[in-house]
């Protein structure tokens, strides 16, 4: 049975696309046929982060509205087997996401893929609603700060009341908390919310904590999902999150500041 998983947050700039790319890649690396869809019509970024922007001919919106076949729009990732990307349009707007069209595309993808990862746009308008409506599971991306946590709470409410599962009275959408940009040092100093505080407010299980790490930005800039950067802490944290998504029990890491070695302290280098 294939699963539709939405990566969403309410707030913008918290790491939805980065996380959607990393988790989709991670699932594919574990041997699951995975597709990641960009729902951010008009502000397409996923193809950039996945490094396939120069291979986009047709997109998700063409498939919904213009009679283009899904296989013409799907882009196979060159680095990871089992991984495909469905990019979106830069020129249309969210109104182009018609519910029946989205459903048709998802139904067709279900025939071919184990995991369908939907990268939601920010906000709670049409694009975000369409990306979460058909979800079986949701990954709520949250930064350790108050406004992000509030917006996540809002999105959880929408999942519970406006998703297809809620409307049909099926089992609720399974919810996972993914805390990104977690800077353990600043958390210790009280400048950022602790994981415990976030969990207390949102009251959903933790899928992962991704440490603040410069490798995330570098990977984005070269069009590589950060999970493929073997030396990165963020990569390790995303791999752990993928394992938990697959039902494995893995201890949380990166919650405490790293002890700096003598030389690091001497040169004030940071990872």
């Amino acid at each position: 049975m294939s699963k539709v998983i939405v990566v969403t947050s309410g707030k913008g700039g918290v790491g939805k696309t980065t996380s959607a790319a990393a988790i989709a890649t991670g699932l594919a690396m574990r041997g699951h046929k995975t597709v990641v869809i960009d729902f951010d019509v008009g502000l397409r970024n996923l193809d950039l982060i996945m490094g396939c922007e120069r291979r986009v001919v047709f997109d998700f919106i063409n498939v919904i509205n213009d009679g283009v076949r899904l296989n013409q729009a799907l882009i196979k990732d060159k680095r990871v087997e089992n991984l495909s990307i469905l990019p979106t349009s830069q020129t249309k707007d969210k109104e182009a996401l018609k519910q029946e069209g989205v459903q048709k595309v998802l139904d067709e993808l279900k025939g071919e893929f184990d995991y369908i990862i939907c990268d939601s746009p920010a906000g709670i308008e049409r694009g975000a609603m369409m990306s979460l409506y058909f979800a079986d599971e949701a990954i709520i991306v949250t930064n350790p700060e108050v406004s992000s946590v509030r917006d996540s709470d809002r999105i959880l409410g929408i999942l519970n009341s406006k998703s297809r599962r809620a409307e049909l009275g099926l089992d609720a959408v399974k919810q996972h908390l993914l805390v990104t940009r977690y800077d353990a040092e600043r958390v210790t100093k009280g400048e950022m919310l602790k994981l415990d505080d976030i969990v207390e407010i949102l009251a959903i299980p933790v899928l992962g904590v991704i440490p603040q790490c410069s490798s995330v930005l570098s990977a984005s800039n070269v069009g590589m999902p950060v999970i493929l950067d073997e030396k990165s802490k963020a990569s390790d944290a995303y791999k752990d999150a993928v394992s938990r998504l697959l039902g494995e029990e893995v201890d949380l890491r990166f919650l405490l500041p790293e002890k700096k070695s003598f030389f690091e302290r001497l040169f004030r280098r940071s990872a």
Partner: protein
Amino acid sequence: MSSRSQPFQIRGSLQTLLSLRLVEPHDPEFFAKFLDKIAHSPDFFRNAPIVIDAAPVASLAPIDFAELVTRLREHRIIPVGLQNGSPAWNEAAIAAGLAILPEGRHAEPARAKEAPAAQPGPAVKATSPALLITEPVRGGQQIYAPDGDIVVVGQVGHGAELIAGGHIHVYGSLRGRAFAGIDGDESAMIFCDQLDAELLSIAGIHLVSEQFDERVLKKRAKVACDGEKLVVTALS
């Protein structure tokens, strides 16, 4: 103990009313345009009380109120009063059977297609007089039980609203807004495991978090109405 010697009770009540602001009342197409506007949401306007707002035109001669009232009533809109009129306007309004209202605060201009501001909460079946909610109430959700109590087993997030005709019980953190006794029942109470609310209201009397005593913050608490004010007490 309520005394029953009077066959009625007179109470203050706060209502939100639509207002119809007259900008160009003599526009020959005034009614055509108005009807076109309300045609988008006939349910919203059906039998709705409305206040005539004369602010932009009060310096001009008053309009024929009798005609305006008749025409509005023909379309099942019930004009109840006038605001922002000059003495001449007020006199004309009183002659037409309208009340004179003090200047009110305005909400955003009413857009005809407006949906309710908050979204409905999770679907729940009320099997008893109290509305029982067993999952967290999230920001943006509104739980509405005009005729009874609300019991939430779980937390109520920032930006969530509980609105009850009776009592409100929250077995978890109350971080949003709670309105109990909305029909003026001053005996209604609010109870919660952890008080961190943005606003508490009983029978229209309210208290915002800034006014809370620090000793009750984040404590198990009960809130009751005492005359004109709310009293928050920590429960040991």
